[in-house]
């Protein structure tokens, strides 16, 4: 059960309020009609299966209803960052990480958020 920071609500909330919606940063091609079947198939069906840091789209389904991006480690399940759609996360090296490598201390984040 993840504890996920909704970048719109600016709060950590329980995973039960969210749904995962697949790989993030997959813009729909602007001119689908000019694409070959192979290119279109790649866009539609091919997804990364990364071991390690991975960018996902989640939605705060039982909250604000907003879609947002999550940088998550698929091996350790750490969440490094969450950020709004349209925003860019350059690097995960600047994450504020707790004493044992976790960024999940809800107290800390609440303070940062307010």
């Amino acid at each position, binding site marked *: 059960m993840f*504890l996920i920071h909704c970048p719109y609500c600016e709060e950590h909330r329980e995973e039960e309020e969210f749904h995962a919606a697949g790989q993030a940063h997959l813009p729909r091609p602007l001119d689908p009609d000019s694409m070959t079947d192979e290119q279109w198939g790649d866009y539609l069906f091919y997804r990364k299966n990364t071991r390690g840091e991975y960018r996902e789209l989640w939605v705060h389904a039982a909250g604000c209803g907003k879609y947002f991006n999550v940088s998550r*480690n698929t091996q350790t399940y750490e969440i490094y960052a969450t950020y709004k759609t349209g925003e860019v996360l350059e690097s995960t090296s600047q994450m504020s990480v707790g004493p044992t490598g976790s960024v*999940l201390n809800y107290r800390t984040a609440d303070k940062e958020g307010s």
Partner: protein
Amino acid sequence: MLSQSQLKIQQRNRLDNGGRINRGKPITFSFDGRPLMGFEGDTLASALLANGVDVVGRSFKYGRPRGIMTAGVEEPNAVLQIGSTEATQIPNIKATEQMLYNGLVAKPVNGWPNVDFDVMGLLGRVGGDLMTPGFYYKTFMWPKSRWETYEKFIRKAAGLGSSPAVPDVDRYDHMNRHADVMVVGAGPAGLMAALRAAKSGARVLIADEGSEFGGSLLFSKETIDGKPAMQWVADVVEQLGANPQVTMLTRATVNGYHDHNFLTISERRTDHLNDRAPSGQARQRMHKVRAGSVVLATGAHERPLVFANNDLPGCMVASSISHYINRFAVVPGNKLVVVTSNDSGYQCALDWADAGREVVAIIDTRAAPDGVATELALERGIKVMKGSALIEARGKKRVQGAIVAPINTSATFVTGDTQHLTCDTIASSGGWSPAVHLSCHTGSRPVWSSEILGFVPGTTTEQRWSAGAVSGQQSLSDVLADGVKAGQDAANATHASGKADIDDLPVPIASSGNQTHCDAMPVYLLPHTKPCSRSPKQFVDMQNDVTAAGIEMTTREGFESIEHVKRYTALGFGTDQGKTGNINGMAIVANALGKTIAQTGTTVFRPNYTPVSFGVVTGAHTGPLFDPQRFTPMHEWHLDRGAEFENVGQWKRPWYYPVGDETMDQAIVREQLAMRQGVGVLDASTLGKIDIQGKDAREFLARVYTNAWAKLKPGFCRYGLMCSDDGMVMDDGVTACLAENHFHMTTTTGGAARVMSWLEIYHQTEWPELEVFFNSVTDHWATMAIAGPDARKLLEKLTDADVSADSLKFMQCTEATVAGIPARIFRISFTGDLSFEINVAAHYGLAVWKALFEAGEEFNLTPYGTESMHVLRAEKGFIIVGQDTDGSVTPLDINHGWAVVDSKPFSYLGKRGMKRNDFLRTDRKHLVGLRTVDSQAELPEGAQAVRDPAEPIPMTMVGHVTSSYYSAFLKRRIAMGLIKDGLNRMGETVFFPLRDGSVIEAEICSTVFLDPDNQRQKV
């Protein structure tokens, strides 16, 4: 009630004094039909031992007699069935965990006819040598076809307990909790951690599986800060209790440690009180905890040593002897032999001697133990046999003696003559295994410590500390200090510290101090004079009857991974999950493979730490609370009318309305004819409705629907088909233009939520520049569809709007009042007949519905349900997405090319998908009508179509039936199906061979069976 003297006779192993039991409150209970007595404060196990009950079960595979071996959750043998009535039966209760209550009824889970005389035991004695690992697979899998037959008998013989045959009578619930610091375990380390964290100002939750706090101190004779250990515990508990920031839970096992410091606690609230929970109380509660920091102070489990016949009742782990003597005033025998590889094994001999019973000898595998423990034993005059091993226990249903022999310094073989010691109890200690289970639940792998000869918690990404015995601390002083440090670190990490008491908390002083100890010897399996495979059975995992020889054989058969060994031998399975046997088993595997234990590694520990009841997992989510139910505003009316209901997602929809003793078939025939010939009404409130507004709403619709929306004027409706970007049909429905920038979209009942998030995800992530807003209004509107030739006459009686054929044309909508209530009227049809869908605010739904029936009496207004709706729509060839489509059909496949407009400027969702190469084939499966040659022949939905019924099996299948009904109006069966190349084969015949050997012949035809010229709906 028995007299005191009878009590005494019965409880022959009970000491006259001491223990944390209430002698003023005797308790009666029964075991295997025998009435017995114990005291308040007893566990079921301590009471059984007090009464001298040796055999509590029979082993799973060999039927060997088994007795109580430990005093905690690691117990492999004393697994019992509890419950006095069928509804309160609980299988697999550990006697060591279950507190005694008046009237407790316990039974062994296996053993027939009873545990003292067991038929399987005889078989085990005869066939035992043959039942090697993989025995069942090797023996019964041939011939393979017979496995199902054998399996029934094998399972019956192998079962552990039985589940109740009637519903549980008790209640269970769930509770959410939040804490800055969650401390797991309330032994010395956990208590200190909680105290330290609480003094820092943190909100602390501390939970322990035991009936009272104290952990190992419950049976310790040490003093802390000069006080008896349990007095010190009481003082700490009082301090914690006085702090409003601290929550303490007893009988609460932290069973799961999940991601991001989410923990689940199973609290047994009333299991210690009675067979049933007292009225109004939940029997068990699941606490779902989200913690800032976690301190694991889960302690350690003592490992028994493995020797021949070590499963005889009377063989126990050393610390459990101290536990029973000091906590329960029960000495489980008369003559004790101790075998140990370390100092901690000595304590039980001292306690035993203090209780006034005979210690025959302490057998120490170490050649020259020179610690304080050995000195103390020698001072007390206890015989210590150094450099020796207990190699075999003797006895039938209880230990009667022990065979002892000198061994070499690595404990791999016997070096001299054996001798027999007479005894009735054997205590063994092979060291301590930290309870690392929880630390592994989030993916962290434990690390082997050669210093303590056990696995300790590894690194983690969670904000978690471990303290005390679980992290490898061995002396009480170190444990206490470790607890203080962990509590401080954990509190600091939550930023909750610094609020209150910032003074350093002094570490309490334990009486044992830093006394010299002698290093433990790494020994797990004690040698025998015979090789492992020939000696009497040396049990590693008691619950699964896994022996040392079995594990060695498994490695010879080529199983090298510890995970494979586990699955082939069943080592570490079962209700105890190998808490006593795992490390010994891994050591034997490592030895057999010439590896170290660190190299062999452990199996993966997963939640739950101990078994939990289904009740506590389910909580209150049973019966009507299992899943939310959704009712339309007219639900009460449907109930009064005697409707049968159909579940559509969470909705309860009227399925049909039987009159008198009508069958379903009779009812839907009546409903269909009433609608086609007069007027019927359907409660369509469950239809998904999305209110769409904004200046770009029209553009947005054009992007998500396959057809054109640019020219739809206010007051008009349009059917829309929605595709996913792969070109497959996803949903359909009618959308009305209410105003230039305001639309009312309808979706299928089941697709409402999916479509809503579909619109949102495209708006939010792809086209945020479009100014459009979506609002799910499904529940805001009550929708009633009146349909039939008399529909207009009925509506005219109730509305102020002009609904004549010229004023409100087909596919138009208007705002008006109906029965005096503001309404939206859509002239759309899902039946092919004249039809109006009336929408009113949900809370007016029932009133308007009733008004319709009042006004409709003269027209014989007939309510119809979803079953009739399905037939009526199929007569007209209207599809149901998800029934006539399945995610592999495009609009063109279902002959809906008229709803696809490619000239739109934006490449709408599904357009490019529909242009993929395969979709340009003209012989794909198409949705077509199927007219059976025999008008009454019933084509089952799902029946497969072939072109040549004479073709040998396997036949070439060319499609299947998607919808099939009896049309009352047409007086024949009608059907639709997806048939390969169907649209190009109108008039051809296809055949449907059925399971019973018959074949139904049908002609491919249009899906529109009724009124192909659309006259009826346009009147």
